[in-house]
């Protein structure tokens, strides 16, 4: 979507963008669902109900084209949406993966029948989606995955194992990448399926993480059945479809990330004042640096968005935010622990939880090492080793 060149650099919002933001703020003020209840199931139903409300107001699937139930929101509007929801401390929608990834993938690669069948239930949160990509032996090297799908009597029989599957126990559909042809180079023998999670052949086991709870799951798939109509993008095209999914995953992280960093930073400064260390020169230097890096993250994102909107192609600054966000978040949570000293390791504080949870920020959604490889190879043009 080409942008007419503005008369000058402009970091303020345009009238249309401001209108969008003001309308959203007003709606949020009136429709905020209140505090999320404790307990996994209660919290999930709370978020599902919240998503229904968002959908009625036309805010679910914001980035989707209007013809598929979305708003065709610009990248800036999507970023504003992420920021405003974070600022309002609103909960996320229940079907985040369906909204951010599943829907866009079906829109980009699906048949008309698939669009007809799958998109509306994503928006209404009637059908929850999860992602079946990573395997115990295939993380960064995703293309090496081994879950196998074999055609038999007109349908696909799937067996294998998946890991790091969020929402598996709530999901109806799994975005599953499996190997359909073991005799061609690894990237070419993959197919993207929509697998029904509600069959006995799919066993779900919670995956407990260092924070204590289990956001993720493992899937043990033993001869699950997937109808042929559930192939997305054609047999053997799984890698291209998977890449679309991953691109949307990374873009989705950008929207609210800078805003939530800013909020956490405010809390960190409050913590420093409470503990009486806000005059300590070393603490001031560390907080100052985190502040600057958080701003650099936000500004890089805006520059990146401008480039995409103008040219359709992200500039180098666009590949940096996810990497930077992990570093800033980790630096913040580490500083909070340092400020809290001996009370830091005691369970129960939000900071203690965040500190442990942040260790995954440099791994989930693409490890920092892989992101650096991408920057080195695709942005700087350095040669590959492997």
């Amino acid at each position, binding site marked *: 979507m080409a942008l007419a060149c503005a*008369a000058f650099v402009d970091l303020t919002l345009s009238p249309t963008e401001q209108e969008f933001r003001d309308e959203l703020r007003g709606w949020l003020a009136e429709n905020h669902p209140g505090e999320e209840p404790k307990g996994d199931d209660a919290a999930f139903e709370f978020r599902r109900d919240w998503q229904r409300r968002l959908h009625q107001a036309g805010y679910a699937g914001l980035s989707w084209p209007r013809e598929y139930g979305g708003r065709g929101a610009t990248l800036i509007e999507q970023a504003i949406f992420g920021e405003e929801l974070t600022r309002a401390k609103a909960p996320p929608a229940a079907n985040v993966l369906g909204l951010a990834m599943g829907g866009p993938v079906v829109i980009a690669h699906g048949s008309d029948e698939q669009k007809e069948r799958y998109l509306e239930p994503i928006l209404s949160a009637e059908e929850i989606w999860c992602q079946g990509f990573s395997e115990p032996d295939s993380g960064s090297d995703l293309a090496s995955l081994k879950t196998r799908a074999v055609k038999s009597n007109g349908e696909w029989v799937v067996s294998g194992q998946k890991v790091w599957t969020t929402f598996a126990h709530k999901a109806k559909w799994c975005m599953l990448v499996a190997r359909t042809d073991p005799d061609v180079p690894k990237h070419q023998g993959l197919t993207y399926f929509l697998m029904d999670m509600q069959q006995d052949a799919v066993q779900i086991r919670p995956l407990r993480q260092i924070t204590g709870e289990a956001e993720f799951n493992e899937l043990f798939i033993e001869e699950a059945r997937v109808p042929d109509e559930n192939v997305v993008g054609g047999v053997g095209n799984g890698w291209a479809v998977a890449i679309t999914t991953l691109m949307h995953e990374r873009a989705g992280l950008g929207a609210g990330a800078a805003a939530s960093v800013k909020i956490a930073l405010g809390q960190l400064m409050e913590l420093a004042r409470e503990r009486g260390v806000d005059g300590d020169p070393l603490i001031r230097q560390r907080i100052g640096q985190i502040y600057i890096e958080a701003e650099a993250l936000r500004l890089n994102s805006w520059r990146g968005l401008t480039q995409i909107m103008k040219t359709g192609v992200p500039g180098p600054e666009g590949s940096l935010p996810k990497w930077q966000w992990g570093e800033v978040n980790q630096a913040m949570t580490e500083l909070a622990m340092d400020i809290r000293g001996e009370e830091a390791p005691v369970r129960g504080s939000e900071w203690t939880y965040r500190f442990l949870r942040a260790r995954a920020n440099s791994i989930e959604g693409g490890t920092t090492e892989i992101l650096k490889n991408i920057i080195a190879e695709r942005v700087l*043009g*350095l040669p590959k080793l492997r």
Partner: protein
Amino acid sequence: MNFDFSDDQQAIKRTAKEMLAERFKLEKVRELAEAGEYHEEAWTEMCELGWAGIFIDDKHGGQGLGLVELAILCEELGYALAPVPFLSNAAAGLALQIAGTEEQRQRWLPGIASGEARGTLGLLRAGEAKLVPDAVGAEVIVLLTGDGAQVVEAANAEIEPLDVIDATRPYAAVRADGGDSLAGEGGDSPYRLATALAAELTGVAQRALEMAVEYARDRKQFGRPIGAYQAVSHRCAQMLLEVEGARSTSYYAAWCGDAEPESLALAGSMAKAYASDAGWRVTASALQVLGGIGFTWEHDLHFFLKRAKVDGVLYGTAEEYRDNVARLAGLSREPATA
């Protein structure tokens, strides 16, 4: 929302890049640096193009443009490491433009805009400005103190040239009494010149990044380009991250200077703090990628390395600006005394 330059600004950037690439091939930069000389002809040409007065009112002989345009030029000049007295002259011009009386402006700005009677600026601490670029040959010197600003005629100042590691620019220590006062502490000009300097550092770092990447692609060891090894390629990725961070924060500060001046103090502090570190870290990292050859006088990298180091402490250190960020971000008022 459009975080990119306008067509006119892109044109200024393009023209500057082309002109500087033509005038200042690295052999020329080296030749001038080793002779301890400036390129007078190029300076005259730049002034004729309106660069020196780009942010100065047109009634005082300038182009009437803004901090964004100045930052664009500073970045390109840093990239080229052009041996001309541009930044110092701009620093004086900024202070006089923002905080000078009409009389002071009329007296000094035309000479600064035309380059014929250039100025410079120093930070006065305990009666001495320790590191003043281009003091010799300047007509007018602006001295910023913690709580005021003075403008003195160079003829009335004690100027002691220094032998500094950055051979691409002469520096001096300056002592002066009296002189005329400028309004306040020079208005917000300290943050404008911090932004200009951050932009220069961005250009310097960008050049070093390109040298490192080119080398990593061409240099072969163990049968392949060294850039294929992740220790090297990841180092380069880190360099890109820091260059882009310096760029984004500098451009933002420049925009604030023109469009949202109430945010300039914080934005300029962020830009100078970040760019001070990035300039040094990126050039030092580039030296590491270059290996042995990066340590030779014969390779051009050290000129960039040294400029980055000096710029990092010029007009305030990263630590000072970072503390300012903490203060302006609302942490609390002052650091505790030791």
